[in-house]
């Protein structure tokens, strides 16, 4: 068993150096603290990206730019009727003219309220399952000058930013994992030197390298798990606190950053994952080094 954390007391004592808490525990606490933070960042950004995709993927706006108001209105009416019948289209709504004028007021002033002003008709379409090209074609048939815009298009820089943050978080986690493995490697080699006499005796009594590696694996796994759980707990508390702050901001877009239950669960798996990683690193280091001795 790789992760035997309760070896027989005698076996635990074999490499004992009399220190109940070791430097390794602290290092692992820090490593896991950083990793969990990076993981939370990554999961939050992935979540926000997904939410953005969900919210925008099916949303588009059809703009009818037609100077003749009556023609524009009839085209808009036909557009709403036709698009609503397309498969996958869930909602079609013409944006209220008064509301539009209100939105334009900062630029146009009261002139925007003038009914003679040739304002384009805007039609909001929610079509999660529909094909963009089909909708565009249908719109062009009614009004050849119609412009169809995907919302996703406008927000793509935001999306790019979110997704690069996710990948940054993933790279950070990989870097920390690499550093952890390196620390374990060094510690295992140092341990082999510190306990050289004991290990020589064990060899002479017929211990296999795997048996000796197991002694190191257990120690490292235990230290990693102990420090890791502490570091994870600290990081999760911080994330929970930050999340409270975030929800106070109340932005819809930031709402997607909030961690789901599944995300919390994944973060809780990190110390276990790191314990496995360091166990493996210790095993490799010990077996490699011992393989060079008689």
């Amino acid at each position, binding site marked *: 068993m790789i992760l035997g954390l309760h070896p027989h007391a005698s076996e635990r004592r074999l490499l004992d150096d*009399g220190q109940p808490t070791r430097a390794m525990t602290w290092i692992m606490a820090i490593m896991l603290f950083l990793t969990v933070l990076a993981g939370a960042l990554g999961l939050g950004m992935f979540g926000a990206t997904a939410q953005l995709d969900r919210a925008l993927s099916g949303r588009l706006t059809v703009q009818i730019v037609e100077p003749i108001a009556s023609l524009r209105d009839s085209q808009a009416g036909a557009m709403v009727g036709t698009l609503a019948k397309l498969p996958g289209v869930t909602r079609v709504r013409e944006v209220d003219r008064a509301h539009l004028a209100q939105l334009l007021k900062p630029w146009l002033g009261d002139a925007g309220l003038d009914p003679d002003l040739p304002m384009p008709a805007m039609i909001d379409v929610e079509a999660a399952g529909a094909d963009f090209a089909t909708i565009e074609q249908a719109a062009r048939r009614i009004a050849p000058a119609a412009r169809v815009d995907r919302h996703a298009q406008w927000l793509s820089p935001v999306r790019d930013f979110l997704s690069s943050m996710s990948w940054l978080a993933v790279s950070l986690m990989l870097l920390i994992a690499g550093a952890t493995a390196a620390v374990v490697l060094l510690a295992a080699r140092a341990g082999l030197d510190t306990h050289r006499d004991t290990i020589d005796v*064990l060899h002479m009594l017929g211990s296999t390298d795997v048996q000796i590696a197991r002694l190191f694996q257990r120690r490292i796994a235990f230290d990693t798990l102990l420090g890791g759980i502490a570091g994870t707990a600290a990081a999760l508390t911080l994330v929970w606190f930050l999340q409270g702050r975030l929800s106070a901001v109340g932005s819809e877009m930031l709402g997607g950053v909030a961690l789901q239950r599944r995300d919390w669960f994944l973060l809780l798996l990190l110390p276990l994952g790191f314990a496995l990683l360091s166990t493996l690193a210790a095993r490799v280091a010990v077996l490699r080094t011992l393989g060079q001795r008689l």
Partner: protein
Amino acid sequence: MANIVQFENVGLRYGTGSETLSDVSFTLKSGSFYFLTGPSGAGKTSLLKLLYLAQRPSRGVIRLFGEDAGALPRQRLPGFRRRIGVVFQDFRLVPHLSAYDNIALPLRVAGVQESDVEAPVREMLAWVGLTERARAKPPTLSGGEQQRIAIARAVIARPELLVADEPTGNVDPEMAERLLYLFESLNRLGTSVVVATHDFHLLHRIPNAQMMRIEHGRLSDPTGVLRNPPGES
């Protein structure tokens, strides 16, 4: 009877110096009792190291339990070493383990169930007269006490070959005899025993023991024929 150990023209050189052992050839029969004597620095410990696989020879062939020990791949060494009990000249006890745990080591290394460890360890402790010191750590034990722990550890797993390097160097004559009797009992149960010693008194205590003498890294009988103890011809 089969040969448990066979040396053929074995030479050992530490580093780049001159040979510590040269042209060592002999055979040990299974179930026999041998003494290895010789002056200090003659190469007794070196020869025993070859025997318990702590050293590889620079030349020559060593056959152990019928196999070429020089050709053993690393992963087969533990299996061979578990068949050999060793009393090191410098004891090599694990300092942070109690006397009890030191004696129990070979059993635990061999994967013996914990429930089957206590009885033999208690028995060995009693044999070497250290029942009261079971919990003591080696650094707090006297030289003779440490030596007795080392002997108990070497014999507890009933090895097929027992190699003891000066096992009575630190104890009084009475205890030496008692320990020798322990080796003899083990020998009667079938273990082959090799004891390196300066102690000529001991040589006469084991009636059937044979003797090898080493001087300046060579067995003093160049033909490699084993000698019986003086007086027995």
